[in-house]
C-alpha cells in the first residue's frame, strides 16, 4: 500500500468574495506524480501556493503524512521542496553556493551537506559549473539547478510549478528524466504544467481543475475519458460539409466543438461515431483517441478563453 504524503480536503480560497479554489480535494502518495491541469485562471497556482504555505486557505485542511500543516508548519515545511516558475536563483553566488545557502534555510540541518551538494551537482550535470555563476547556464541547466536546489534538504514531497516552460525539446526531455528518477526514488511530486504530453507522460494521477473545482481526477487516460468521451472527430477545413457535420453533432449533444486552424475537433461517444460513419460516409474526416490537448482546449473554451 502506498503512503499518502499529502492529503488536502475541502481546500477553498476566496479573493474579493470570489472562490478561486473551491472545495478541492487532492492526495499525493509516495513515489507518484500528481499532475494539476487546468486553463489559465483555473486555480492551479493558488492551489499550489496554499499547499506549500504561501497563502493560507480560507477553508479546508492540509495534512502532510498525517500532520496538519497549520499546526506543525515549520516541521512540515522541513519536508517540502518547492520549485516555482520564477527563476529565484542567486546570480551573485556560484552554482554550488546556491545549493549551500538554500540548505541553510532548513533545520534540522542537512546531514553531510558538502557531500549532498556534491552528489546533486554530479547527478544534475552541474559539477563543471560548480564554481561559476548561474549566469553561464543555459535555460535547461538553470531549471536543473532550480530543481536540485529544491531537493537539497531531502524533502519527501516536491512541488514543481511548470518545470519545463520555456525549455527547448531536448532540455524538456532531460527534465522529464530527472522528474522520473526522483519519483522512482520515492519522492511524492505535485506538478502543474501547460504541456499536455508532459502531464500525460509524467503524471500517475491527474486532477483537472476548472473554475477552482476539481472536475476530473484519476489516471490520465481515465480523466480524458471522463471529460471528453471515447473519440475525437477531426474534420479538415476544406471539407464542404464541415459546418453541416458540426451542426449535426451539436444536435446530438456534442458541446465541445472546437475549431483549431480551421479544422473541427469534436469529442464524440461511440454511439455518435457509429451514427456519423453511417450518415457522412462520403465526407472527409478522421478519428483518433482524445488526448490532453483536446481536454485543455475544452476546458479553455468552457472558461471563455478560447474561441
Amino acid at each position, binding site marked *: 500500500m502506498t503512503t499518502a504524503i499529502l492529503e488536502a480536503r475541502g481546500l477553498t480560497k476566496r479573493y474579493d468574495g470570489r472562490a478561486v479554489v473551491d472545495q478541492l480535494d487532492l492526495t499525493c502518495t509516495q513515489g507518484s506524480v500528481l499532475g494539476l491541469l487546468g486553463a489559465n485562471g483555473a486555480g492551479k497556482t493558488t492551489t499550489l501556493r496554499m499547499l506549500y504555505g504561501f*497563502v*493560507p486557505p480560507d477553508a479546508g485542511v492540509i495534512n502532510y503524512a498525517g500532520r496538519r500543516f497549520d499546526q506543525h508548519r*515549520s516541521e512540515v515545511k522541513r519536508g517540502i521542496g*518547492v520549485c516555482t516558475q*520564477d527563476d*529565484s536563483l*542567486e546570480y*551573485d553566488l556560484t552554482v554550488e553556493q546556491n545549493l549551500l545557502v538554500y540548505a541553510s*534555510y*532548513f533545520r534540522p540541518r542537512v546531514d553531510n551537506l558538502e557531500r549532498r551538494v556534491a552528489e546533486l551537482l554530479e547527478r544534475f550535470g552541474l559539477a563543471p559549473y560548480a564554481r561559476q555563476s548561474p549566469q553561464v547556464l543555459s535555460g535547461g541547466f538553470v531549471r536543473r539547478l532550480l530543481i536540485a536546489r529544491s531537493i537539497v534538504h531531502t524533502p519527501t514531497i516536491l512541488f514543481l510549478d511548470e518545470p519545463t516552460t520555456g525549455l527547448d525539446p531536448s532540455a524538456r526531455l532531460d527534465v522529464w528524466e530527472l522528474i522520473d528518477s526522483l519519483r522512482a526514488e520515492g519522492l511524492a511530486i505535485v506538478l502543474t504544467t501547460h504541456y499536455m504530453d508532459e502531464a500525460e507522460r509524467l503524471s500517475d494521477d491527474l486532477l483537472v481543475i476548472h473554475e477552482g473545482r476539481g472536475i476530473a481526477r484519476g489516471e490520465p487516460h481515465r480523466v480524458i475519458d471522463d471529460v471528453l468521451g471515447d473519440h475525437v472527430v477531426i474534420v479538415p477545413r476544406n471539407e464542404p460539409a464541415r459546418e453541416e457535420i458540426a451542426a449535426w453533432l451539436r444536435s446530438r449533444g456534442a458541446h465541445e466543438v472546437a475549431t483549431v486552424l480551421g479544422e473541427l475537433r469534436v469529442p464524440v461517444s461511440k454511439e455518435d461515431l457509429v451514427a456519423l460513419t453511417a450518415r457522412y460516409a462520403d465526407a472527409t474526416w478522421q478519428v483518433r483517441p482524445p488526448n490532453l490537448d483536446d481536454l485543455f482546449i475544452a476546458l479553455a473554451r468552457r472558461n471563455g478563453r478560447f474561441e
Partner: protein
Amino acid sequence: MSALRLLLAAGDWRSWAVFRRNTLVFARHWRTAVIPPAMEPVIFFLAFGLGFSGFIDDFAYRGIDINYATYVAAGLIAYTGFGTPYYEALYSAYFRMFYQKTWDGILSTQVELPNVVWGEILWAAARGMVNISIVALTVAVFGAMGLVDVRPQFLLFMPFLGFIAGCAFASFALIFTAIVPAIDHMNYPVFLIGWPLSLVSNTFFPIEPESPALWALMQLNPIYHLAECARGLLVLGDPGPHLLGLVGSSVIWLVPSTLLAVRLTRRRVLGH
C-alpha cells in the same frame, strides 16, 4: 502571529539565515559595495567639514569651543548611520524582492516572512556599521593630523550606536519598499523624507527649536540623538541624555515600523 512573536522573530535562526545570505553576497563583491558608498560621507567631510571650517569661527558646544570640522565629523557619522541602512532597505531590498525574486526563493523554505523582514533590517543596520567604521577611521586620521579635535577611543563606539539607530531606519524604509509601485517611486522616500530628515537633525548645523512641538518632534528623531550622542562622546567623552534618547527613539521607530513593514510586505509578496 502576535505582535510580540513577530518582534521576537529578530532572534530566530531563520532571520539570521537571511542575514548570513546577505553577508555572503556582500562578501563576494565587497569592494564595489563598500568603497563608493562609503566615500560619500568622506567627500562630504572634506568638502563641508574642512572646507567650511576656514570660514566659520570656533563655537561653543556644551561649554567647550570646537571647530566646525569637529562638529561635522559627528554629524557625518549620524548621516552615514541613517543613510546606509535607509538606502540599503530601500533599493537593495527592493531589488531582492522585486527583480531578483530572492525573497520568493527564501519563502519557499522554512523561513517565514517576518524572518525575511528582520533579516533585511539586521543586515541593513550591519551595513551601516561597516560604513560608519570607514567614516570613523577617516575622522581618526584627520584627528591625528590635527584637523579635528576628537577623543579617538570613542570612535570605536560609533558603529554600535549606528547599529541601534540603523535597525529603526531600515524598518522604516521597508515600509516604502513594500508599497512603492516601481523603483522610480523610491524618489519620494529618498528626497521627500530621507534627505530633509538627515539635514534637520543637528548633523551639519545646530537646530534649537523654540517651539515645544518641534522640540518634542526632535526628541523622536533617532538621527538627532545619534548625532548628539556621537558628538558628546567624541568631544566630551559623555553622550549626555542622548544615549537614552537614541535607544528610546529608535525603539519608538522600530516597533511600529517593523509591524507595519511585515504587514505590507506580506500583502505585496504573498498577496494576503
